[in-house]
């Protein structure tokens, strides 16, 4: 693993992709009703303080990852405990994402699993280093965004705006509950990036990275949910499991462009791969800290299978 510096734009793209992660397709599987788009907006606004906090932490401990910070602030024993907890948490999330991604692939079209292939890909990526990974994210982000925009442009004719009404029919409470869920997942989860803050290059302002990342990611999540509501309508949105998938599948243009949910599927595969890799990377960094292993390569192999 080479200690190449990572620029703030790479961080940003990685964070946006991370936020997309599984959320692009599983968004609102929490029991959100008609006003889920408001929840997202609120969640974005509410996660701004979080972004400031994370940014401040990164600023207070320059050239230090989250795990180093733990040891520095909580001492050796307690710090190590935190590292262990966080690493397990990240590891758990990574497996969960892999799991749900495979589940999606299975339900959507393929009965058999792609878990192993993705696993190998993740190992390979971790071995390739964070720099390669984040550069990849930077290249892939415009593609992902372009695909989202494509679905919106193609589906524009079929939008039914009446589904947006009435606003706040069920009152504010479910909206707030949902936005709380949104804050924890995916926005607050961006804490995982603090682990990587040690690799930042010199002119890296983490507050900015966080704010931009969350804003861009949140905006496209919002657009995504909006599109699903306008296309699928109610109560379909609440009934189907994979909303984006269904929503894009009904986009039809003159009988030639049809079933373009593959766009969503590819987005999902890319972004959830990125998310799982981010988590696993963080987790393996944590374990390395814990057990004082020098080489991330030997270690990452032991996961995944």
């Amino acid at each position, binding site marked *: 693993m080479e200690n190449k510096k990572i620029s703030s734009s790479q961080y940003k793209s990685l964070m946006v992709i991370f936020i997309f992660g599984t959320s692009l397709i599983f968004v609102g599987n929490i029991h959100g009703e008609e006003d889920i788009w408001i929840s997202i907006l609120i969640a974005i606004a509410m996660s701004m303080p979080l972004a400031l906090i994370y940014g401040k932490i990164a600023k207070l401990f320059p050239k230090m990852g989250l795990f180093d910070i733990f040891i520095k602030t909580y001492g050796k024993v307690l710090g190590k405990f935190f590292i262990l907890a966080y690493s397990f948490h990240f590891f758990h999330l990574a497996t969960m994402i892999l799991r749900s991604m495979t589940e999606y692939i299975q339900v959507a079209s*393929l*009965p058999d699993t792609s878990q192993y292939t993705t696993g190998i890909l993740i190992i390979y990526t971790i071995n390739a280093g964070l720099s390669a990974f984040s550069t990849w994210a930077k290249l892939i982000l415009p593609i992902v965004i372009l695909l989202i925009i494509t679905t919106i442009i193609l589906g524009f004719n079929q939008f039914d705006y009446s589904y947006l*009404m009435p606003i706040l029919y069920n009152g504010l409470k479910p909206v707030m509950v949902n936005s709380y869920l949104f804050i924890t997942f995916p926005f607050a989860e961006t804490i995982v990036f603090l682990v990587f803050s040690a690799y930042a290059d010199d002119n890296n302002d983490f507050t900015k990275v966080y704010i931009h990342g969350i804003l861009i990611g949140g905006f496209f999540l919002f657009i995504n949910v909006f599109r699903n509501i306008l296309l699928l309508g*109610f*109560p*379909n949105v609440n009934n189907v499991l994979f909303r984006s998938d269904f929503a894009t*599948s*009904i986009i039809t243009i003159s009988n030639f462009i049809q079933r373009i949910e593959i766009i969503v599927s590819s987005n999902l595969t890319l972004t959830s791969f990125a998310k799982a890799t981010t988590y696993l990377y963080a987790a393996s960094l944590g374990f390395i800290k814990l057990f004082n292993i020098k080489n991330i390569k030997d270690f990452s192999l032991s996961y995944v299978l």
Partner: protein
Amino acid sequence: MNKSFIFILIIFMILSLVTGCGSYKEIEQLSPVAGIAIDKSPIGYKLTVEIIDVDESNKEPKFVSLKLSTEGKSIFDCIRNMINLTAKKLYFGHTSVVIVSKDVAKDGIIPIIDFIFRDAEPRINMYMVVSDEYTANEILHLKSVSTDIRSFEIDTMIVSNDQLSKVPNTSVYQLANHIGTPGLYPVIPTVSMEVNEGLETIVLSGGAIFKQDTLEGFLGLDDIKCLRFIRNEIKGGLFIFDISNTTISLEIFKNKTKVRPKIVNNQLVMEIKIKTIVSIGETNGQIDTLHENSINRIKTIAETSLEDDILQFIKTIQTDYGLDIFGFGNIVKQRMPDLWKEIETNWDSIFKELDIDVDADIHIRGSGNLFKNITEKQ
């Protein structure tokens, strides 16, 4: 590096052995189903599928349609029973239409929608149509006029009917929404058989009203036009009326209908505002289409005639069915959510007594290519 390379290689080999060709299915080993017809049978359902087949006798392959039918307790059971009949797997990825017979529709169409949504293959934007007089099986067996495949023809007919606006353009995912939306009852297209020039062929014959998911009744082609006017679904079509022995056909270019709930004298009134841009498509009499006065006369008469048609239609629905197929309830929910919370439970009875206020505004844009009417020699 070398070690991990070998490791990856081994993984790949294991992978190829383990997964093999799990979901690999050759396209020619599938039987693409173009359409499904569902009838009642003593044990449950009778399912007929139209399969796209290729006639290989010529060098140029020709598509032919092939029909198969099975019976079973559920839709899925019927489909599984097809395995007894054909070596190929039925493939619903390109299915464009589901024909449901009257009897099945009366029992409820939820199982069919459920199958379409649950399975990954069928498209949720296919059409579901109800056959009114004949069994769905008979409809599917009719000879196709314009294409080789019967079902694709029905699909195309419904889509191109937007130029006529005489059939509801409701696909399955919208149908599912309508079933689940309070204050809105779904209407889906119906098909029937007609003998045209000695050829038994299929016609779209209007719409079928559903109460939740059970069939309640049928509507004619012109009724559907009124329905689409109210639902703001008019994309084109003709509006025909008479002025003193002269029949005038107006071609609709654009239509915008706004339905708003209003409280008048403590009474809920639905206010329907129709704004239509038309041009004169055809006249069969001596109507001056050039002067403003005359055009204004046409306009007023057309407006009243449209208002009358729509009011009449709504009255019929209110008295005959009492089902809110116009989605008035939904509009109340959107515009007056607080009121809706109060009246939601007894909306059906409120709908029967609902006052309607229709206001049509027809704007005549032009008179086609003719400056004057074509007249005989004086």
